């Protein structure tokens, strides 16, 4: 649609000026088109998020508790909120825990998602239909509901998971308390998150795999390539952009995850020793009604997740800019 400019005619001095002007207008009209197209998106985002973001930034430099909230007026404290957070050992422990948690979740999601996608290619059509509709069912379950079902399945008294593990002779899981230690709690949260994310990742990757040219694979196999070689040299390069997008989205989502850990571990078991970043933000900002500190944590989180995903995002931006 663009770039069909013709070289300027040499002579015709009479119309020269007006035509140039007209062309100037035409060109600027044309260069305005993309801006016109993005205006609605930018307006919606700016209108809804612009002021809250400004507020958040301002709040992070203020003492803003319940009293100030009611008075609608905080008092400026400079960077005191940031300083106090950076000097809080809970913050650093939480950050470390969340980074490890994110790494485990993203890795598990991507690896299992890819395996399921590869499996979808291998199985025969009826099985593929069954499996993919199963994935869809899982995807359609609201997080709030999934949390309740997971809790119900792992409850101490008659959790069906305990029963199954005992029956399968994995060990004696009668009255096993899945929520007893931080490790066990966060492992359950990981299972819940990965389980919930797999359908999206697997279906997307499967769709990507469907684009791997069949003849290319066959040609490679005729040449004696091993399945692993085919995977590495043909499949992965084709999937790379999609893997990139999924990985970066997963990092962003898992780093900031709130609903699953908060509801599954349960408010009564949340303490500084099992915080994840969003839970930390929520407890400091809302429960302790220190909104200024909460805002500062939000901004730090934004910076950290940007730093964590910078490699992926830079590549994505490059992809986004290049065509």
């Amino acid at each position, binding site marked *: 649609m663009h770039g069909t400019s013709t070289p300027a005619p040499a002579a015709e001095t009479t119309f020269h000026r007006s035509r140039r002007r007209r062309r100037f207008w035409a060109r600027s009209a044309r260069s305005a088109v993309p801006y016109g197209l993005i205006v609605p998106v930018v307006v919606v*985002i700016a209108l809804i*998020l612009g002021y809250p973001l400004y507020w958040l930034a301002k709040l992070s430099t203020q003492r803003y508790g319940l009293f100030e909230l009611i008075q609608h007026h905080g008092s400026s404290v400079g960077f005191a909120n940031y300083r106090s957070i950076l000097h809080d050992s809970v913050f650093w422990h939480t950050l470390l825990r969340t980074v490890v948690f994110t790494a485990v979740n993203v890795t598990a999601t991507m690896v299992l998602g890819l395996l399921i996608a590869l499996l979808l290619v291998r199985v025969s059509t009826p099985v593929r239909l069954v499996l993919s509709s*199963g994935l*869809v*069912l899982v995807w359609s379950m609201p997080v*709030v*509901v999934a949390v309740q*079902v997971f809790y119900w399945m792992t409850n101490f008294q008659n959790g069906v998971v305990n029963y199954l593990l005992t029956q399968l002779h994995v060990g004696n899981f009668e009255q096993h308390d899945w929520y007893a230690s931080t490790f066990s709690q966060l492992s359950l949260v990981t299972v819940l998150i990965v389980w919930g994310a797999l359908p999206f990742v697997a279906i997307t990757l499967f*769709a990507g795999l469907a684009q791997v040219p069949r003849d290319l694979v066959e040609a490679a196999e005729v040449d004696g390539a091993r399945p692993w070689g085919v995977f590495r040299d043909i499949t992965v390069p084709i999937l790379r952009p999609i893997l990139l997008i999924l990985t970066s989205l997963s990092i962003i989502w898992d780093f900031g995850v709130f609903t699953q850990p908060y509801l599954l571990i349960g408010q009564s078991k949340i303490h500084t020793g099992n915080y994840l970043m969003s839970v930390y933000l929520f407890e400091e900002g809302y429960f302790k009604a220190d909104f200024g500190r909460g805002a500062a944590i939000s901004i730090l989180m934004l910076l950290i997740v940007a730093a964590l995903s910078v490699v992926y995002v830079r590549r994505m931006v490059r992809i986004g*800019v290049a065509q």
Partner: protein
Amino acid sequence: MSRRSRRRLRQAGWNAVGLAVFVVMVFPVFWMISTAFKSNDQIVALKPVWFPLHPTLQHFTDAIHRPYFWRDVLNSMIVVGITVAISIVVAFLAAIALARYRFTLREVFVVLIIGIQMLPQAGLIIPLYVVLARYHQVNALSGLIVTYMTFVLPFCVWTLRGFLIGIPKDLEEAAMVDGSTRLGVFMKILLPLMGPGLVATSVFAFITTWNEYIFARVLLNDQSKQTITVWLSYFLGTSRNTDWGALMAASTLTAIPVVLFFIAVQRRIQFGLTAGAVRG
């Protein structure tokens, strides 16, 4: 063993693995549905009841007869319908800009789109409430709709852009040479080709908005104006009795629209999710 039977055996093996994965993945969903049909005694039984032999519909009737069920389902449909429709249209325009034009602020725009997704939503609850209250959009579905749009739009723009890149430009240029108008090109060529992409993106938007809970909870106060996930949370909000059977029945009911939507668009999505994402 002949080559063919070995091949068949291997295929059977893959199928078995596929079914095993299916069983593990779907188990929680199965457990939810099966619990919904059990009597209260069976629900708390120490030895799990796998299939209720005398399924009861009691929990479903209980759930439906709780106040505001139909009202809140309708609210959810309105919110999701409008959010998805407007987001897709608006995001499509922006996606065209990204995929078909070069402009100075493009990089800034891309960073904005990705950056929005990095905002911790928990931190935005009160600021968002304050700004929406200023426009009198608190306790109103329209306020929730615009909130959802801000979070759905970035993803939609990004995926739709991917789909657009997959469509060769020559098609449009040829049509332009043939004397079609820009709008004509858009309606006749771009739109039909974009079908799968639009469907795939709207599925994502649909599920995200249908399942969203936190903002809906904070922004909507009237029970007659709440969405279905908030309605669900009332099963757990009381300090009294949690009615597991009714909760599971209600959860099953809320999943139905998503499944129906999926079935309706399922055939297109198989391509859908591909093209967009792969063409980076």
